[in-house]
């Protein structure tokens, strides 16, 4: 499967056959594609056709697709004795060259299908057309004002569209027979009950002349022409070793002629067992196929407009896409370069910013102090410790004062009826001795000290002659 060649929403597909031009317009809609036949006229004088074609293009925003007839191209299945697809791609042109009736340099060749077969081989479908035929075809189209972006292979287009519109009903051979006034296109393949994308295109053949079939379908005068066509079909089926059970699908302008198809079906019955069907709207089948492949891509992609024949729009698109990718890559590279160059500077600037802030703060905290790089915190901490004693009295004024503690102790002693023999405190230590009526009252004296976080121990002394409970209180700052 592959995508479209150009991103477009509208495609004008041209089916140029002997003496006539049919154009279909296809547009991408929410659900699939919307097809409409917009032109169907005889080409006797190119000028009026060109004018009508120009009118179709007037709306703009569309791409043209056309087909190279089967008889101006050839398809070959090739097998490269290599397991690697990449290596096989290099030798396939040489293998094709051997099978071509002309030099490979004189033609345009494509490989729409390459796949390892699983037996150490790579299988490929080659499609080739002489450059001169392609140029002639493009000139014919250009004479009508048509410049196709896609020049598809008629047989591959018919095959993929047939599978799209009539998915395989079961395994077996399928023949898509497109009846045109000037030729009968036969496309063969195997469906084998697989998905449409997996069905195998076998080959495409163009049977000419067929004008006699149209002129006298059902008449005895047409019998030789019919027999000739039936004979060719027999040869083709035998060459492909096609089984006797074949799904035969009519399409092309001739498919609408019931007498013609019935006559041919009658004669084909002698060749084997056929299940005959017709595609819907057969006259515009090829233009639908071409437009669908141009807008949506799909299996068996093919566009002969490559190399020197490439459409300028496609070339411009490819150049634009290539430059876009290059610009994106360069932009990403520039961003990475910028980041790579700027990031260390950003980090260094951040480091310098923090260092500067550190030095500034250190300078404010310890003015005039020499600050060795990296030792700012240590130096400032030392300087603040050195001067802490000078500030201590100021801070102590805001702490709970020792005077208040002493007041509270004296008040507690008085309230509890305690007699204090001695009381002393200095710095962090406290001692007291005294006596009370009972132990519970003595215990009350520890309250004010403990309330200030001092860890004090009250020890009971032996009772004296006064029958009071004597105590000793000792303590200091809690560890």
């Amino acid at each position: 499967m592959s995508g479209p060649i150009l991103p477009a929403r509208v495609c004008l597909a041209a089916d140029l056959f002997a003496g006539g031009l049919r154009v279909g317009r296809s547009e991408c809609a929410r659900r699939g594609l919307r097809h409409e036949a917009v032109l169907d006229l005889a080409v006797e004088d190119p000028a009026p056709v060109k004018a009508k074609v120009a009118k179709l293009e007037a709306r703009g925003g569309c791409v043209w697709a056309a087909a190279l007839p089967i008889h101006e191209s050839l398809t070959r299945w090739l097998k490269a004795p290599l397991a690697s697809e990449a290596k096989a791609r290099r030798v396939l042109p040489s293998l094709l060259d051997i099978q071509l009736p002309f030099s490979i340099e004189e033609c345009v060749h494509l490989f729409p299908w390459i796949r390892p077969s699983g037996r150490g081989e790579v299988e490929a479908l080659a499609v080739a057309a002489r450059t001169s035929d392609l140029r002639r075809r493009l000139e014919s189209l250009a004479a009508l004002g048509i410049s196709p972006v896609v020049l598809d292979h008629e047989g591959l287009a018919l095959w993929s569209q047939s599978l799209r519109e009539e998915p395989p009903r079961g395994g077996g051979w399928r023949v898509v027979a497109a009846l045109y006034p000037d030729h009968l296109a036969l496309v063969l393949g195997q469906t084998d009950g697989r998905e449409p994308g997996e069905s195998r295109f076998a080959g495409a053949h163009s049977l000419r002349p067929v004008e006699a079939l149209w002129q006298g379908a059902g008449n005895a005068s047409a019998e030789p022409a019919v027999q000739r066509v039936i004979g060719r079909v027999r040869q083709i089926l035998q060459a492909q070793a096609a089984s006797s059970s074949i799904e035969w699908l009519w399409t092309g302008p001739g498919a609408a002629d019931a007498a013609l198809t019935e006559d041919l079906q009658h004669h084909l019955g002698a060749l084997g067992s056929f299940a005959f069907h017709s595609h819907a709207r057969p006259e515009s089948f090829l233009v639908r196929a071409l437009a669908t492949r141009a807008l949506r891509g799909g299996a068996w992609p093919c566009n002969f407009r490559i190399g020197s024949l490439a459409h300028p729009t496609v070339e411009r698109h490819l150049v634009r896409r290539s430059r876009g990718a290059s610009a994106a890559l360069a932009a990403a590279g520039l961003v990475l370069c910028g980041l790579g160059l700027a990031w260390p500077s950003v980090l260094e600037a951040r480091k310098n910013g923090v260092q500067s802030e550190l030095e500034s703060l250190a300078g404010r905290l310890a003015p005039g102090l020499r600050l060795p790089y990296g030792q700012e915190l240590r130096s400032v901490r030392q300087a603040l410790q050195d001067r802490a004693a000078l500030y201590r009295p100021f801070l102590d004024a805001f702490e709970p004062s020792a005077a208040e503690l002493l007041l509270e102790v004296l008040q507690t002693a008085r309230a509890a009826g305690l007699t204090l023999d001695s009381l002393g405190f200095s710095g962090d230590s406290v001692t007291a001795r005294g006596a009370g009526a009972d132990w519970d009252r003595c215990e009350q004296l520890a309250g004010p000290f403990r309330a200030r976080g001092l860890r004090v121990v009250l020890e009971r002394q032996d009772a004296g002659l006064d029958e009071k409970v004597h105590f000793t209180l000792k303590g200091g700052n809690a560890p």
Partner: protein
Amino acid sequence: MKREAVIRGAAAGLFVLGILLAARAAWQTEPVAAQIRAKLADLEQMRSLQAGSAREEQAVAFFEGMADHRPAPLRELAGRLFPGFPSAVQTGEDRPAASGWTIRAAEISLDPVSFADISRLLLELRGDGTRPPWQLTDCQIKASEQGAGQGRVVLGVQALEK
């Protein structure tokens, strides 16, 4: 097409250069980031030191804002409260404090004195907030044998002065 190939090559070269520079920058990031983290940690600690320093400055400013930078005269105060103790106050050694202030130290000895009267003295030492207070630094109380609730009291005090 050759021109396109040159453009693509140049773009790819620029991209590769960018990758190399970005990789080099990434490789250099961690050591510098570690230095920055260490400095930020130092800065954080420095800010907590600054907060402590600010408290010190505010405390000094509080004293600077007082109407009178001298504490209440201790001898006068003791004489008023305890008229019977003419030499109860002994001055100690002065010590320097921040911003030109001086720490005045003194000792008040009262013997004998009722412990209840000590409360009055302590309240007077706190002052009225218009001048630096006398702060109690240590205290020794010893009851006399004559009676409960009185005895010898020695109070160590200090005050800031400028």
